[in-house]
């Protein structure tokens, strides 16, 4: 979707305002840590994946997305997914008290403390078997397709229609556009280099480039 989350190249947000490193807490309030932890743990129940979770945050109304703090957005995304899947009801969210149980087979997958504490810590595999040979190889000139899918995608607007050069083939990896819809399929993934002037025009400093990871469906050959 052409969502508000796709921020690369937008103007008007004002300058970056860093807090001094070393003075910034990991969580700026206790509730942020709880939202982070709940999102991670619920995410391990096998009900949805990283792409559906991202898409739930991206589907917020644009004004809400920009006005909410980072963990407020996470909370909104988590509540959206929990209610959409029928795991909790809006009434339960208000009261904090359960009026119906969770399916036993889902609760049986709840993350145990030892899974949190010992390496590998809650890791996920993103590579998939290659069902076809890669269409592109390092050094190939490619163009990011001018796609505007209505669902989730990881092809940022600022590269669409732009030409670049394949730097590396990362193998077949889970394809976000389908994964967000619950369909698990692999597609070849590439690291592609775009020159700054190709992306941003003549006013850009020419001595810069942006590397973007793009799935094969996002690319076409360029000449």
């Amino acid at each position: 979707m052409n969502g508000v989350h796709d921020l690369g190249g937008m103007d008007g947000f004002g300058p970056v305002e860093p807090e001094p490193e070393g003075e910034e807490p990991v969580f700026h309030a206790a509730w942020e840590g709880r939202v982070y932890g709940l999102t991670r743990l619920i995410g391990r129940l096998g009900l949805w994946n990283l792409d559906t979770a991202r898409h739930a945050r991206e589907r917020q109304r644009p004004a809400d997305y920009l006005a909410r703090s980072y963990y407020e957005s996470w909370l909104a995304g988590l509540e959206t997914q929990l209610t959409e899947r029928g795991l909790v009801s809006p009434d339960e969210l208000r009261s904090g008290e359960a009026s119906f149980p969770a399916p036993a087979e889902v609760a049986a997958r709840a993350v145990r403390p030892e899974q949190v504490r010992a390496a590998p810590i809650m890791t996920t595999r993103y590579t998939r078997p290659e069902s076809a040979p890669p269409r592109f190889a390092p050094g190939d000139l490619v163009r990011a397709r001018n796609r505007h899918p209505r669902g989730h995608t990881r092809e940022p607007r600022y590269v669409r229609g732009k030409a670049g050069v394949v730097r590396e083939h990362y193998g077949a990896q889970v394809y976000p556009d389908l994964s967000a819809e619950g369909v698990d399929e692999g597609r070849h993934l590439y690291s592609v280099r775009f020159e700054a002037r190709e992306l941003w025009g003549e006013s850009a400093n020419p001595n810069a480039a942006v590397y973007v990871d793009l799935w094969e469906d996002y690319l076409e050959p360029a000449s």
Partner: protein
Amino acid sequence: MPDNHRHDHDHTEPPSDIELRVKALESLLIEKGLVGAESLDALVDLYEDKIGPANGKRVVARAWADADFKRRLLAEPVEAVASMGYVAAQGEQMRVVENTDGAHNLVVCTLCSCYPWPLLGLPPVWYKSAPYRAQAVADPRGVLRRFGTELPEETEVRVWDSTSEMRYLVLPQRPDGTDGWDEERLASLVTRNSMIGVEPARAPEEASVR
């Protein structure tokens, strides 16, 4: 920030709307057996206290001190950092990009907030903020200037937009005047920001005054 947390009270006063909302969600999910209270505490503690930029600092320091480790880190970063015990979510796939006299690297996630958690912990607010995500790809030198980093015109800036599940870590240049330093001393010069790429590593004289 929205106006749902009005600062007409001090923080020993009753909890805000969002605190209540999160508390309600937490007790609901625990009651339904979807989240274990002990797992939740353990996870929050882990990212508050243990998984943070100190891991990345040790990795960079080792790469500076040990040429063989540096070769492994650049060639097979996941395996190299696993040998130091860093195996966790958001580090399943990584590339380490090396700063040189000719090229300076900068990492961003324009679409969300992707970041190499096992080595840097959770990202700072500015990394997740709209200004950084918007500007890092379009005006990287302007962003670097906000951090006091001015690069020579002939240095190429390479921005890495984390659009997939590949995570990027910048290997900053080893500061001059550190010959013979051991890993622990070298690690004191590595900053989180230098591993995102917005700043160089500290110079030895800078570290001694801090």
